[in-house]
């Protein structure tokens, strides 16, 4: 399992793996938004939590096809399915590797993007905490969506239609944490809900994802 984890991270970080593309996407998004809504700092600060979270969703979504599609194409997914580790474990490991390569860089870089959007300093720790706790759920749910569409040729757009509704609770609580952090109004409550959603995804997705993969590998 550790070998699989290391392999996935290595594949993602080497050339052509798309590592850093998520960050680049995030940067472009944060650059484009002021053009769209005007450079006023007050307006930007108001919508910053939502923009940052929607950006995190989209950055995560764009890299989802990497989780299973490439392995399915070259046949290594079939080998993984027959390997002595349970398929549920494969799903968890793959989601974890996806999070390390897309979710974690976002968490680390989030304060910089927050600065670009005039997010008040008081909300920064809450932004980082919310992303740290919330993005694993995005990777896990995304792994389920990727497993669902792994056998499809034109899966990209369908994947977004399937996965984005699943992201609604995460987005809602995640943005709420930052919004409340800005005015210092008990942001711990939505943060706790966010943690609950991540834990629920941890408990649910490995089994659903593995079941779906088995169907697709039949």
């Amino acid at each position, binding site marked *: 399992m550790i070998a699989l984890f290391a392999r996935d991270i290595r594949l993602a970080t080497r050339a052509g793996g798309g590592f850093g593309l998520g960050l680049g996407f995030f940067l472009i998004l944060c650059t484009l938004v002021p053009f769209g809504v005007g450079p006023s700092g007050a307006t930007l600060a108001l919508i910053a939590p939502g923009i940052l979270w929607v950006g995190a969703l989209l950055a995560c979504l764009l890299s989802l096809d990497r989780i299973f599609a490439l392995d399915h194409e070259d046949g290594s997914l079939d080998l993984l399915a027959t390997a002595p580790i349970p398929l549920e474990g494969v799903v968890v490991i793959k989601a974890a590797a996806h999070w390390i390569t897309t979710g974690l860089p976002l968490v680390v870089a989030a304060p910089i993007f927050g600065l670009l959007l005039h997010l008040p300093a008081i909300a920064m720790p809450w932004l980082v905490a919310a992303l740290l706790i919330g993005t694993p759920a995005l990777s896990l*749910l995304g792994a*389920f969506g990727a497993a*669902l*569409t792994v*056998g*499809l040729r*034109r*899966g990209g757009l*369908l994947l977004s*239609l*399937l996965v*984005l*509704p*699943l992201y*609604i*609770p995460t987005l*809602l*609580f995640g943005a*709420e944490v930052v919004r409340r952090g800005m005015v210092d109004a008990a942001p711990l409550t*939505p943060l706790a*809900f966010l943690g609950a*959603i991540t834990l*629920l995804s941890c408990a*649910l*997705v490995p089994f*659903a994802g593995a*079941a*779906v993969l088995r*169907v*697709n590998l*039949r």
Partner: protein
Amino acid sequence: MSIWEYANPVKFMRLSGRVLPWVAIGAAICIASGLVWGFLTPPDYKQGATVKIIFLHVPAAMMAINIWAMMLVASLIWLIRRHHVSALAAKAAAPVGAVMTLIALITGAIWGQPMWGTWWEWDPRLTSVLILFLFYLGYIALWSAIDDADTAADLTGWLCIVGSIFAFLSRYAVLFWNQGLHQGASLSLAPGERMSAVYRYPLYLSMLGFGLLFLALVLVRTRTEIRRRRLAALIAREVRA
């Protein structure tokens, strides 16, 4: 004699063929009389004549949620007991549910414009119905994207289970998000305490009619799916021979 006997497509076709006309006639009678009776009710003291849209809106919204629940049960039956009729019934129900959700949203908007002064409001109730509509769309899109019927049934079944959990989560998460900002319970359905009998009885009739309508549509669509399966099997046999 158990209900599982009707998992046999032949028996299902025989029974559904016999029941279908009666269900359809019942649905037509209930909806027609419910709507006409509803239309003849006196205007509400506050909402005026706009109150009458309730006879479309509430049954549609009720069916929107219950059809998804029916799809969940059918998906579970398919995943656990592998009865094809069950999977096909779930597939047949999805577009009906999506249309019911759309009717609820549109009639709500038409009512909301004169009453709230807006076509749309990010009220928890409205938002969760919209989210439900998105789940319907994803479910239907997944069905139509996969060629192999059994694979499609399995994958959509799992999507329905996971989707149900997250649709349910969203339903209560939106309360957290916009509670107190807007009237959360303004569309609350508690006919016993909220509505006078003048409106309640035609509403019951209309709800019954929508339920029967759904049953009739699902039966027709499931029968069509079964026939389509048979046709595909026949063609496959011809090609091989």
